């Protein structure tokens, strides 16, 4: 049976249990409730089991689920009095990246993130969350503004990659990404980056040079998309499943390889199932990270940031 089918059956089971709970009343309910609870629990653990055995390409599908919360959703859940800012002051406003300022708990913060669309029209406007150079330049402008006003920065990463197009190349896609990596490495304010969906290559990393990098449990962070990898290696993009496995792009592997600092838990079926729960988990991690990072002097912070990326890599000599 396909995972999707099992999931549907579990959902149906849950619905039946819910109806039962409502229909049955009085003493009968008292007697039956413990049994219902027990059934619910075993359904939940079955689901956990189901998702523990998830394959890498299924993880990719979860990471790309269009019903996952986007940057603007997380801002809605976590940030108070948010004001969105626009434009790179050079050419245009790229809506594949959004950003602005607001309060996290009581701390003023700058929040920036890739923004995928909610429907086709929105997605066309936002290029499916694939930024042009202007998106990265807007992000850098806002990050430098955060530095000026001593505000911590929270970045949300969710992009298939930087947009591959004529204008993007003409206006320096490579230069824009490189400049972000370069400037972020010495930005004199704490930076937290969270992969909330797809961490697609350089286009993702351009928001990812941070003091703390987290991944949500069902996200991916990769040097190339599984489809791209398969089509280069095997000239066959349908072998994306094998590529996803070979690339080791899930949160556990990224943590093991030292590319990220921690994993933020999600509901078993993905962040799409319970936005508020994911946002609450995220709030806790951000709060702890900000507390930790505020203990260090800026010099120490920058030294730690440099060393964190400095030591990534495997070789012999």
């Amino acid at each position, binding site marked *: 049976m396909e995972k999707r089918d099992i999931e549907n059956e579990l959902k149906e089971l849950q619905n039946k249990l819910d109806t039962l709970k409502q229909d049955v009343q009085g003493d009968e309910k008292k007697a039956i409730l413990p049994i219902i609870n027990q059934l619910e629990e075993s359904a939940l653990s079955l689901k956990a089991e189901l998702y523990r055995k998830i394959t890498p390409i299924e993880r990719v599908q979860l990471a790309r689920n269009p019903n996952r919360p986007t940057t603007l959703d997380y801002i809605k859940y976590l940030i108070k009095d948010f004001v969105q800012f626009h434009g790179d002051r050079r050419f245009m406003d790229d809506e594949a990246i959004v950003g602005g300022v607001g309060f996290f708990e009581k701390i003023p913060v700058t929040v920036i993130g890739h923004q995928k669309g909610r429907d086709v029209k929105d997605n066309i406007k936002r290029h499916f969350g694939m930024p042009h150079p202007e998106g990265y330049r807007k992000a850098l402008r806002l990050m430098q503004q955060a530095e000026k006003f001593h505000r911590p920065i929270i970045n949300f990463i969710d992009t298939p990659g*930087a*947009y*591959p*197009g*004529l204008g*993007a*190349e*003409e*206006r*320096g*896609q*490579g*230069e824009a*990404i*490189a*400049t972000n*990596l*370069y*400037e972020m*490495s*010495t930005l004199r304010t704490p930076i937290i980056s969270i992969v909330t969906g797809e961490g697609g*290559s*350089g286009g993702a*990393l*351009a928001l*990812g*040079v941070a003091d703390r990098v987290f991944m949500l449990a069902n996200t991916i*962070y*990769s*040097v*190339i998309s599984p489809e*791209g*990898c398969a089509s*280069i*290696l095997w000239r066959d993009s349908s072998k994306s499943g*094998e590529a996803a496995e*070979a*690339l*080791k*792009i899930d949160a556990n*592997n*990224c943590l093991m*390889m030292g*590319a990220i600092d921690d994993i933020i838990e999600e509901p078993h079926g993905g962040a799409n199932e319970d936005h508020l729960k994911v946002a609450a988990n995220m709030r806790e991690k951000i709060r702890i990270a900000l507390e930790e990072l505020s203990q260090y002097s800026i010099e120490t912070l920058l030294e730690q*940031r*440099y060393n964190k*990326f*400095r030591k*990534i*890599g*495997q*070789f*012999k*000599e």
Partner: protein
Amino acid sequence: MSNLFIKCPSCGVTHFQSILVKSLFVCPECGFHHGIDSAARIKYTVDKGSFTEFGKNLCSLDPLSFPNYEEKLKSSMKATNMNEAVVTGTATIEESPCVIAVMDTRFIMASMGSVVGEKITRAFEYATEHNLPIIIFTASGGARMQEGIYSLMQMAKTSAAAKKHSDKGLLFVSVLTHPTTGGVTASFAYLGDIIIAEPQALIGFAGPRVIEQTINQKLPTGFQRSEFLLEHGMLDKIVSREMMRETLGNILRLHQNVSKPQKEYRIEQYGLK
């Protein structure tokens, strides 16, 4: 390059190899710049006998146990007689000392994995420590996907090292050669104080094929070539291979005082007082 005759892929004219050796592998007919290996590049660029290599022993591992990667490494090492896709060291160019790094596309398209990232980073760190300018000849197919997230993170690592070097007031000249793409373009290649390219080099972030597939139209002639990029303000200068040593020598001379880092401009340093 062991063939006696070499046909120019641009104009189709065939030349004796001996003639091309004299012309630094630039087609005498049309000026096309043939690809050259790192040894030739170093020979054409630095003062004779001045090059001292460092980091030669760094070798790649196969940290992801990626299909066929180990075999690929082995065959590349055998074919090129190199341990990895970049050569780093110190040298002088027209008597000015510098750190130099040269990428070599014969080694897995000079893609950047842990070793390329580490060697570039060490080259920056050496230059920072010894107050030296750095020159990097880039050429790369991008990140080395066989090393997964490790290779992506080399972009951040090398860029941070370039920033430290720059913050000390030191010079970085990036020379982009054919082809420079992907993760190398989007990291150190585009971080030079001065960015030079060889003529007709393909330079870009996304590959032309991917762009064509995405926008579903043919790309204009000359798109992503050096001349196109110069016109769009993405390069300081296009320099032919023949003029490269002289141009770099001149740039280094113009910056020789920055090798003693100082906080401000002082006229005395130029002996004009």
